């Protein structure tokens, strides 16, 4: 197996209130079949051997489905391949290359330490309206509610969002419209989501604004980096649903 020697410039920051900065390290002997996160694991072992503190970064399933890994790699959230950072392999890089590794950046995503950012603003948007209300107890028959195939496909496509926040990091405005669009479209498209449709849309958009995300100005950088291929049409759907909901709220 081929091995790589790399220079990495990593954002180091002691805690949320400390000033951070880029620090250069040599990552030696990295197998090209290692994932990007495994490269950081190897680098951390090398750092710990020297008695230096390990680089803190977010990770969990390492299978591309949990949305926990992040990192802006050479300026692109999740780096050069169309997947999550955990599914990015070192064979995408050249021996001797310098790689910039920085946190997902936005006011609504404060850096906690090194490359870890606080993305709980997404959780609070979900709690504001990204759910349906259902009674507890025995579930009704699965086929009792008919769902047209196009609606099921559209909802499924939007539901693929893993909430990683790459859209916010890629957006020059730090806007969360692709995330909120995906989460709202997912439920607003299904029959089960209709009773709370307007309430959901208003609550999620208002929470998004209150959390300090920017405004969408249709740059579409979000769609280009999304590891779940969420289309930007979820944003136009959200724009439409929000105004419908705002008008109907005002005439109630």
């Amino acid at each position, binding site marked *: 197996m081929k091995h790589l020697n790399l220079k990495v*410039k990593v954002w180091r920051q002691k805690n949320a209130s400390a000033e951070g900065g880029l620090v250069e390290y040599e990552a030696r002997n990295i197998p090209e079949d290692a994932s990007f996160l495994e490269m950081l694991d190897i680098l951390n072992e090398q750092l710990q051997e020297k008695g230096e503190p390990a680089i803190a970064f977010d990770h969990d399933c390492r299978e591309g489905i949990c949305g926990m890994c992040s990192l802006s790699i050479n300026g692109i959230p999740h780096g050069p391949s169309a997947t999550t950072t955990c599914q990015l392999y070192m064979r995408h890089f050249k021996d001797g290359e310098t790689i910039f590794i920085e946190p997902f950046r936005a006011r609504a995503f404060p850096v906690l330490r090194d490359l870890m950012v606080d993305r709980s603003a997404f959780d609070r948007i979900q709690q504001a309206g990204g759910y349906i209300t259902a009674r507890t107890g025995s579930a009704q028959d699965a086929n009792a509610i008919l769902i047209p195939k196009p609606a099921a496909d559209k909802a499924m496509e939007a539901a693929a969002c893993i909430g990683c926040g790459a859209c916010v990091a890629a957006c020059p405005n730090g806007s969360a419209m692709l995330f909120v669009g995906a989460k709202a479209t997912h439920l607003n498209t299904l029959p089960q989501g209709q009773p709370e449709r307007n309430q959901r849309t208003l609550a999620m958009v208002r929470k998004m604004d209150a959390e300090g995300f920017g405004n969408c100005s*249709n740059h579409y950088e979000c769609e*280009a980096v999304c590891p779940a291929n969420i289309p930007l049409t979820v944003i*136009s759907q959200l724009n439409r649903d*929000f105004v419908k909901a705002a008008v109907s709220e005002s005439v109630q």
Partner: protein
Amino acid sequence: MKFLASFYGSSIGKKWVVALTGLMLVGYVVGHLVGNLQIFAGPEQINQYAAMLHSMPKALWVIRAVLIAGLFLHVFTTLKLAAENKAAKARQNERRASTAPKPAKKTMVLSGLVLLSFIVYHLLHFTVRSTDPRFHSLPRGEHDVHTMVILGFQNPLVSGFYLLSVFLLCMHLSHGLQSVLQTLGINSKSLRDTLNKGGQTVSWILFAGYASIPVAVLLNKLTVVAP
């Protein structure tokens, strides 16, 4: 009132204001071009058109007031959005890369502000007529637009700034038209490419139309006709 305040207070509400006023201004840009192109049909045609517009001063001033209010809202709201966006991305990474770059997108505020300065100059030039003393004694009287426009564009500096401005306008629209539709919620997977290409085509047709007049004057294809 409460509805308007909460609507304008939201991110999507402000975007709708920019989109709707933008759409109205595009409507004016199309209408203005239809008026302007009559210059190729000779002095009678375009001067008659100008006299017709001025024969209904009330309607003219209502349209002017609506356009100015729309322009003000469009610019003011965009600057507010841009300031909020800057604050939402206060800190930038050292290394930045764009995966969907397009110069028109990145320069919307800049092209808009240059256009704003052009609009002020253009109004002083041809509407208020305070920049060129010749426009106060036109051979066919006050509504001799034909002579006025040709005299104006014979100055290469005036034509140059005009061409630059209409180029920026159409660059602004090449992103703006599909952006308006996306913001108003008129987009889908099947429509997307058509709307995108349609917006760009309309923009560059508008550019060709507007640019044709100063170019024709500079090439001596359009000349002053003695009464």
